C-alpha cells in the first residue's frame, strides 16, 4: 500500500484550521466578555478591587458577612419563591397553550399573532401594566369598587408591593408564557401528532396520551425553556424592585442596593451577592440538568 496522499492530510489540516478560525470570533467574544466577567465577579467578591484601593484577595469575609446574615437567607427564599412559582406557572400555561395551538380553532391566525405580543415588548411594559391593573388603586380595584365589593382601596387585596405577592409573578408569567408556548409549540410541530393518534388508537385516554406520549417527547423543549426562564427569573431585578415589598428584597435587588450605596466597600459585598446568585442559579440549574440527563439516558436518548 502506498503512503496516504499528502494533499489529503494537508487539506484536512487546513480545514481544521479554517474551522477554528471560524469559531474564534464567537469564542473570543464570549470567553473574554462572559468568561472574563465571571472571573472578575468572583475575584471582586473575594476582595480584589484595586480601583477602589481595595485588594485583600483572597478574602472570604464578604461572603462570610453575607451568608452569616439571616436577611440573606430570607432574600434567597424570596428570590427562589418568585423564580420557582412563576417558572412553574408559565410552564404549565405555556404547555397548555401550545397543546391548544396545534389544534384547529377559530381565529387561530389572529391568536398566533396575539400571543407573541408580550414576547416582543420589554419587561418594564409588563411592570407598567401590572401597576395599572393590579395596584390598590389599579383597574381591578376600581372595578371591584364599581361593583361594590370594596369601599376603599385598602380593602383590595394587596398584590403589589408586598412579599410573596403575585404582582412580580404575574409580570413574569405574562411575559414568559409566550416564550414557553413558542418553544413548546415549535417542538410539537416537529414531533407531529402521529404518535398521539397512534396512542389513542391503542386505547390510551387523553391523560395517558399526555403524560406517557406527548410529555416525554416535548420534554427537551420544556427543559430548555425552563432553564432560560428560571435563570432569568432568579436574576431579574426590575420587577421585584418596582413591585416587590421592600425588605427583605430579592437578591438582585439587595445587590443593587449595595451597589448604589455611597460606601465603596459595600460594592464588594454586592459583588458577593451577585456571585451568590450566579452560584445558586448554576447549582440549581445544573442539578436540574443532571437530573434530566439521567432521565434521558434512562429513556435511551443521548
Amino acid at each position, binding site marked *: 500500500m502506498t503512503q496516504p496522499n499528502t494533499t489529503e492530510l494537508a487539506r484536512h489540516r487546513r480545514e481544521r484550521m479554517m474551522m477554528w478560525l471560524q469559531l474564534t470570533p464567537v469564542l473570543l467574544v464570549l470567553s473574554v466578555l462572559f468568561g472574563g466577567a465571571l472571573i472578575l465577579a468572583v475575584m471582586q467578591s473575594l476582595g480584589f478591587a484595586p480601583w477602589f484601593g481595595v485588594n485583600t484577595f483572597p478574602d472570604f469575609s464578604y461572603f462570610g458577612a453575607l451568608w452569616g446574615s439571616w436577611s440573606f437567607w430570607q432574600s434567597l427564599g424570596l428570590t427562589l419563591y418568585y423564580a420557582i412559582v412563576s417558572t412553574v406557572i408559565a410552564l404549565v400555561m405555556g404547555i397548555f397553550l401550545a397543546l391548544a395551538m396545534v389544534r384547529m380553532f377559530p381565529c387561530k391566525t389572529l391568536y398566533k399573532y396575539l400571543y407573541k405580543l408580550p414576547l416582543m415588548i420589554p419587561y418594564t411594559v409588563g411592570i407598567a401594566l401590572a401597576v395599572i391593573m393590579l395596584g390598590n388603586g389599579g383597574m381591578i380595584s376600581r372595578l371591584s369598587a364599581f361593583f361594590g365589593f370594596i369601599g376603599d382601596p385598602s380593602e383590595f387585596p394587596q398584590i403589589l408591593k408586598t412579599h410573596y405577592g403575585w404582582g412580580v409573578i404575574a409580570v413574569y408569567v405574562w411575559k414568559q408564557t409566550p416564550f414557553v408556548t413558542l418553544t413548546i409549540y415549535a417542538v410539537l410541530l416537529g414531533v407531529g401528532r*402521529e404518535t398521539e*393518534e397512534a396512542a389513542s*388508537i*391503542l386505547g*390510551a*385516554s387523553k391523560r395517558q396520551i399526555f403524560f406517557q*406520549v406527548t410529555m*416525554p417527547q416535548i420534554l427537551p423543549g420544556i427543559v430548555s425553556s425552563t432553564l432560560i426562564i428560571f435563570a432569568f427569573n432568579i436574576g431579574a431585578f426590575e420587577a421585584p424592585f418596582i413591585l416587590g415589598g421592600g425588605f427583605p428584597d430579592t437578591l438582585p435587588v439587595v445587590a443593587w442596593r449595595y451597589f448604589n450605596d455611597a460606601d465603596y466597600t459595600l460594592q464588594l459585598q454586592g459583588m458577593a451577592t451577585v456571585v451568590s446568585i450566579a452560584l445558586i442559579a448554576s447549582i440549581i440549574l445544573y442539578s436540574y440538568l443532571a437530573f434530566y440527563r439521567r432521565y434521558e439516558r434512562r429513556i*435511551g436518548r443521548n
Partner: protein
Amino acid sequence: MTKVQLKGVRKDFGAFTAISQIDLDINSGELVALLGPSGCGKTTTLRMIAGLEVPTYGHILFDDDDVSEVPVQDRQVGMVFQRYALFPHMTVEKNVMFGLKVRGTPKAEIEERLEEILDVVQLQQFRHRFPAQLSGGQMQRVAIARTLITKPSVLMMDEPLANLDTKLRGEMRRFIRELQQRLGITTIFVTHDQIEAMELADRVAVIFDGKLAQYDAPDALYQRPNSVEIADFMGANNIFAAQISASGLATAAFGTLQLDRDIVTVREGAGRILLRSEAIDLLLEEPDGENVIEGTVEGREFFGATVNYTVTCGGEIITVNEQSRRLVEVGQKVWLRIEPRHIWAIRDDA
C-alpha cells in the same frame, strides 16, 4: 372478525372535499388494499374508519353497528402508520406493551402476550432497544406488533412498506400476508404501488380523486379494468384505440383482432383495447391462425428476469414483455400473436 362498511361517506376539510363519496363493504377477515395516486384520499379514508376523523356525511358500520359516535379509544381498531409513529422514548418492549398497559391488562397477561407477539415478529433480541436503534424493517415490525398485541378487530396499515428498500419490502409483504392469514383479522391497507396491492390483497379498492373507481379482486382489476385510467394506473402499456364490431372484432391501426366474447363485455362502438404485454408471443417466423400482428423490434430493455421489447406495428408501438431466456436483436422483423382471452376492451364512454 369484524365486517366494515362505509355508507355514502364524504369528508370535507373546510371548503376542500377530500372524499366525495365512498361506499365500501369489507368482509370479515378480508384483506383489502386501498390503492390510488398520492392525495386521492386513502389516508383520509383509513383515518375515518379508525375514528381519527369524523365523516362529514355518511356512516361507518362495524358489524352493522354505526360506530360514528364511538371514540377512537373504544373502536378496537389497530392502525400502523406510514412512518410507524413509534414512541421514541420507549424501548421496543414498552412500545409493544403500551396498548395493553393503558387498558390496565393484568401484568401476567401482558408478559405472556408480549413474549408471544415478539416471537411472531421475531424481535426477541431487540426488545430493549429504542426505535432510533432499529432498521426500517424492524421498526415496521414493532409497529405491527404494537398494534396486533391489542387484538384489534380491524387492522389498518397506511403505506406500511413505503419506506423500505426493495428486498425488505418483499420480506415484509410475505410476513404481513402470512400473519393476516394466520390471524384472520379484517385488514385494510393503503398503498400507491399496484404490485403491492395485487400481491397482498384479497380485494383492491382503487380510489381516484376521492371517489371509488373500482373495487375488485386483484386479477380482475388487472385483467378487466373498468376504465382506461385504471388500466393506465395498473401499469398497462398497450392501450390502443379500436373500433369494435358486434361480432367481437376489434379494428386498430395495426390490424384486426378477435376478442373473446365471453370475457369482453363491450358490444359495439368506438373503444380501447388492452393487450397485456406479457401475454403477447413474440415469434420470429410468421405463424398460422388469427390475431397475428406483423412488426419490427425497435428497442430492447433488459431487466434481468425479463426483457421488454418495443415493437412497431403499423405506426403503433406495442410493448412485449418476455422472460429473458433468449434475446431478440433490435431491428428484427417479428410476428406478435395474442390469444383472444388476453385482450380486454373498454368503451370510450365508460
